[in-house]
């Protein structure tokens, strides 16, 4: 009689145990099935993104080739017209508007995030848009005549915005290292970086700042002017 009473209690306990076990197995099984399906999706997306980036690169290269061709065609057309005044005007305006690739003496600055360390606020280890903004302003103060970041020409409307771990410049995203090229007096530019308040702070956080003087830096032209200037009305009266 006693044994029978025990068996009854054990049966209930084992039933509950059984249900719990089966629930557990199901949860693990479904979880692993779903996450492997998710991984598959993720992998597919990554391949598609890589293909897209490749297309982007090709398109940009083709656009640049065609823009070079265009510049040559236009100059050919102008010299056919034998109008030296327009040719000089063309050259001067394209140069002043950052639409000509240029070469000259200056500095190349390489900015890279600090090496990762544990137990520290990671936001102190990375380069922010404010760092870039202030470094550019220091270079401009020191008389830079042309600047590029990772070969994106800096123009009047070039933004530098943090977007996750990347920085957006001229609507293109770049990650570290950032290579800033600036044409100007190399000594003045290098000194301005050395004495820049922000650079001193960045170096304190172990952000890597390398400055290299160069006599023949090449800075590419801005190549997307039509997308930027659209529907803007120029005031024709240039007499004032």
């Amino acid at each position, binding site marked *: 009689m006693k044994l029978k009473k025990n068996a009854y209690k054990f049966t209930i306990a084992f039933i509950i145990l059984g249900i719990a076990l089966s629930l557990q197995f199901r949860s693990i099984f479904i979880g692993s099935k779903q996450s492997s399906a998710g991984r598959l999706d993720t992998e597919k997306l990554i391949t598609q993104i890589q293909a897209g980036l490749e297309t982007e690169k090709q398109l940009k290269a083709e656009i640049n080739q065609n823009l070079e061709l265009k510049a040559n065609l236009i100059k050919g057309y102008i010299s056919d017209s034998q109008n030296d005044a327009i040719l000089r005007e063309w050259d001067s305006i394209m140069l002043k508007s950052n639409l000509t690739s240029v070469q000259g003496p200056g500095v190349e600055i390489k900015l890279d995030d600090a090496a990762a360390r544990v137990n520290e606020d990671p936001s102190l280890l990375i380069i922010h848009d404010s760092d870039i903004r202030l470094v550019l302003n220091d270079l401009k103060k020191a008389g830079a005549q042309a600047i590029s970041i990772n070969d994106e020409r800096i*123009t009047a409307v070039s933004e530098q915005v943090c977007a996750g771990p990347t920085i957006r410049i001229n609507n293109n995203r770049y990650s570290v290292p950032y290579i800033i090229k600036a044409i100007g007096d190399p000594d003045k530019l290098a000194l301005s970086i050395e004495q820049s308040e922000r650079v001193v702070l960045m170096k304190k956080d172990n952000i890597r700042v390398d400055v290299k003087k160069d006599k023949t830096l090449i800075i590419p032209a801005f190549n997307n002017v039509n997308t930027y200037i659209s529907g*803007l009305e120029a005031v024709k009266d240039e007499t004032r």
Partner: protein
Amino acid sequence: MKLGRNIAITLICIILGAVLAWQYKSINYNQSALSFQNKRTEDLQDELIKLQKSNDDLSKRLQEVQDENKGYESAKAGDDIAAQNLLKELETARIFGGLIDVRGKGVIITLENGIDFNVRDDDILKVLNELRASDVQAMSVNEERIVAMTEVREAPPYIMINGRQMVPPFIIKAIGDPDKIQNSLNIINGVVEDLKAYINVSIKPSDNLSIAKVRDDGTVIKTDLLAPVK
């Protein structure tokens, strides 16, 4: 006998409890892993969509340039259409370089000293950068056109822009989409909220803004060190 039975039941109950707890944790873990995965997948999808859109734009741009080139290829001296295109190119370049007065829709932003704090150089730089990020096409600060190499230099009690001394208020004009500009400036935790903590900021949309060209006397745009690359 009674003791043995009690020990057995206690043991079973402990195992049962442990299994239940383990189960609960496992379900939670699976769910959070799944939601992390979903988040990552969503991010990637967003990125892909953006990339596809920008590639479409690039294709269009390529087509545009190729068409323009065809026009110039067949152009002969004295060709009216080519001549007009050329003038248009020059005008676009002038607008882009700040070499011509422009007019359009946009916003006027005024920065004024606060009670305890003055407007700093970086405040102006922040606003300009945010405006650039919202796709403005031309900007000026106190009628000084912002060009590529425009500096903002603090020289108390002045701030110097394009080598010209200025005092507050700083009136920043920007031509672009007024709604887009206001949205991106006024976003929560955005530039305006940030600046309003210590200086006075006001934003006003305008349907008819004019922005003057840069002083082109060789002091703002210098090109003596720049050799064009062929």
